[in-house]
């Protein structure tokens, strides 16, 4: 403190006098320093308060790899928050992770936000999250469009297959079972991976499975309203007329499964399917690309014979075309006939008949009846259509059901309104063969083999007698005749002599005939005028020729 100048007398007059300092500082300016510091501190607090986003809590089953104050929350690799605290839930079953989101990430505290822990994962479909091996585990985040705020989240155990806003469309597939598919299984289009299975769930009735797939843009436009999906899992090994064929989408699908889709052959509209369009998932490509089956119809057949070799799923064929399959085989008892007929249930797809079915429907309409399958069937049955169990494979004895026209089939009543339709049956071709064989056997049995044998015996005895007679009586005479003939033909016999003379005479005659014919060919006029006199007998050889 500056004390006021004292009134004491100066001790020495020769001391120098201070000079006036022309500088004046307002001492209170020093308070600017703490004020500035306070302002800086305050700005930090305000900044922190402004930057602080919502505080959310996420529950996970385990906090493996998570660290309070360190583990970041990332969206598209951008840090949007940080784990501040990790604690156990009250019942100690879950782990509650408190996350401080940044102010800019306030939109992540909404209803459709999803959180999951990104760890390195090795699956059949590939390896993911390798970067976390170095950078450490982090929490991945995804957010949708919702504006409704939410601060408690259930963390996902596996990363979602599709992030919100990813280009592409999701579709729903219905299938009887899941097969070897799983979340993340690839979706192929012409063997290019264009998407993956996002989720699956049992339908409420528990009888089928719904899968949700996501097809990435721009490939999603290849999914049209008529696209067919099939399960491309595993290996398709088929033995056809062309030999053994092995078919699979990719090596990964052999192990991990996959879905493929394609448009069916033939002209069709190519309008891209809308979001969440629903499709059936076929078991294989052939089934998927086959023309649509149309609604299935159930039929029933009663066979009065053993159906050994007929199995469920055996084909039902109509003129060699597979129109359905056997779904049930049940034994029945007929009290009146005291027999055990076999009731075979089958499902058929009339539209597999193609044009034939259309024409039959038209025909039925033209005849005034309704185009019901029952009506059509009645016409066909009255024309002799019958179901037969036929042998499909001679080696294994597998049977199939064939619908065919049997000539001279017995008339039967056909109930058009029965459900399921009952198709009359006929014994199978093999059975018919058996029957005919039996016929032949009975006819053969009627042949009197005994009497035939006896008669034959008698005849043989007679023959024996005759032969003996021949031996004893005829042969000696025959020998004698031969001896006479031998004498007549010997070299010195008169017969041979005469024969030689006759032959010489004949030779001469032939020679003169030749001379005559020679002359006539040279002088044909001689036939009319007679032989001319020779002008000069020059050729001496001519005279002996003209002799005869």
């Amino acid at each position, binding site marked *: *403190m*500056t*004390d006021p*100048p*004292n009134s*004491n*007398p*100066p*001790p*020495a007059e020769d*001391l*120098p*006098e*201070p*000079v*006036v*300092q022309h*500088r*004046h*500082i307002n*001492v*209170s300016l*020093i*308070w600017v*320093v*703490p004020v*500035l*510091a*306070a302002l*800086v*501190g305050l700005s*930090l607090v305000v900044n922190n308060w402004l930057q602080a986003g919502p505080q959310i809590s996420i529950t996970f089953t385990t906090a493996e790899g998570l660290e309070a104050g*360190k583990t970041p929350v990332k969206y598209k690799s951008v840090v949007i928050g940080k784990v501040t605290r990790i604690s156990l839930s009250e019942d100690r079953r879950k782990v509650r992770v408190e996350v401080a989101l940044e102010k800019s990430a306030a939109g992540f505290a909404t209803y459709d936000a999803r959180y999951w822990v990104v760890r390195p994962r090795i699956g059949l479909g590939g390896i993911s999250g390798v970067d976390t091996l*170095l*950078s*450490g585990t982090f929490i991945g985040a995804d957010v949708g469009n919702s504006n409704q705020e939410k601060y408690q989240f259930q963390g996902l155990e596996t990363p979602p297959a599709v992030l919100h806003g990813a280009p592409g469309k999701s579709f729903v597939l219905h299938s009887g079972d899941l097969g070897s598919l799983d979340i993340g299984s690839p979706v192929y289009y012409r063997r290019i991976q264009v998407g993956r299975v996002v989720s699956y769930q049992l339908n409420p009735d528990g009888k089928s499975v719904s899968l949700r797939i996501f097809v990435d843009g721009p490939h999603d436009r290849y999914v049209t309203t008529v696209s067919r999906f099939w399960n491309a899992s595993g290996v398709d090994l088929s033995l056809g007329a062309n030999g053994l064929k092995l078919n699979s989408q990719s090596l990964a699908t052999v192990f991990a499964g996959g879905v493929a889709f394609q448009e069916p052959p033939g002209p069709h509209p190519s309008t891209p399917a809308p979001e969440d369009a629903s499709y059936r998932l076929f078991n294989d490509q052939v089934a998927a690309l086959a023309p649509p089956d149309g609604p299935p119809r159930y039929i029933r057949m009663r066979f009065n014979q053993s159906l050994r070799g007929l199995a469920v799923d055996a084909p039902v064929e109509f003129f060699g075309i597979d129109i359905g399959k056997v779904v049930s085989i049940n034994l029945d008892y007929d009290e009146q006939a005291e027999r055990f007929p076999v009731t075979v249930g089958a499902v058929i797809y009339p539209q597999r008949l193609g044009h034939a079915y259309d024409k039959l429907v038209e025909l039925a309409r033209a005849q005034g009846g309704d185009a019901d399958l029952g009506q059509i069937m009645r016409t066909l049955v009255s024309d002799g259509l019958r179901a037969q169990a036929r042998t499909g494979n001679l080696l294994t004895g597998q049977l199939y059901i064939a619908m065919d026209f049997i000539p001279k089939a017995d008339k039967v009543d056909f109930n058009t309104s029965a459900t399921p339709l009952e198709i009359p049956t006929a014994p199978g071709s093999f059975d018919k063969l058996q029957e005919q064989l039996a016929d032949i056997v009975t006819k053969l049995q009627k042949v009197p083999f005994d009497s035939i044998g006896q008669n034959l015996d008698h005849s043989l005895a007679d023959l024996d007698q005759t032969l003996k007679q021949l031996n004893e009586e005829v042969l000696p005479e025959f020998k004698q005749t031969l001896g006479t003939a031998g004498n007549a033909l010997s070299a010195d016999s008169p017969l041979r002599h005469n024969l030689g003379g006759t032959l010489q005479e004949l030779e001469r005659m032939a020679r003169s005939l030749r001379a005559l014919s020679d002359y006539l060919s040279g002088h044909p006029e001689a036939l009319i005028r007679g032989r001319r006199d020779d002008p000069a007998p020059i050729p001496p050889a001519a005279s002996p020729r003209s002799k005869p």
Partner: protein
Amino acid sequence: MSALPRAHELGLIACHVCGLVCREPNFSPAACPRCGSGLRRRKTASFMRTWALLIAAFILYIPANVLPIMRTVNVGDVDDNTIISGVVELWMQGSPSLALIVFAASIVVPVLKFFVLALLLVSTRRDSDWAMHQRAALYRLVDLIGYWSMLDVFVVALLTALVRFDVLSRVEPLPGVVFFGLTVILTMFASMSFDPRLLWDARKNHD
């Protein structure tokens, strides 16, 4: 001791810089006729300046401790450390001596300075003659160890410059270290602006 007259009782004033003793002026401000530096009996507004700087240093000391001062990146493993968490980490990782040094330099020394300066200011203001020699000793201690606190700042600066192995290892300074450095500088200014002669002024009143 009590018999000795004070300079201003004799109407004299000494220059702080060159030590020239001259007649006490009856005007203010005055300058030394030899070296031209300011001439005053006690440091100008010593109490006010010291208080102001001390308060500013204390305010800045809060963010210096709350905010992280250093980020160490070790093969993708990012670690942000405040002063106290750095000390704890050093201790945990088996360098207790190093931890103690950092703790002394970064925590003990600044806090000691706050307390000592505040104590000196308050006691001097009240013209207390309690433990004057010890208080004077405290002041000398504070003046001496004031810049030791800069150790932490140097550590961060050095590591930042030395540890630069991109992906493998990296050290980055964070805002906390700026506040800490400012705190240390302000406390040094505060102790400089305190005039220890004020301590002895109290004696006069009890004479």
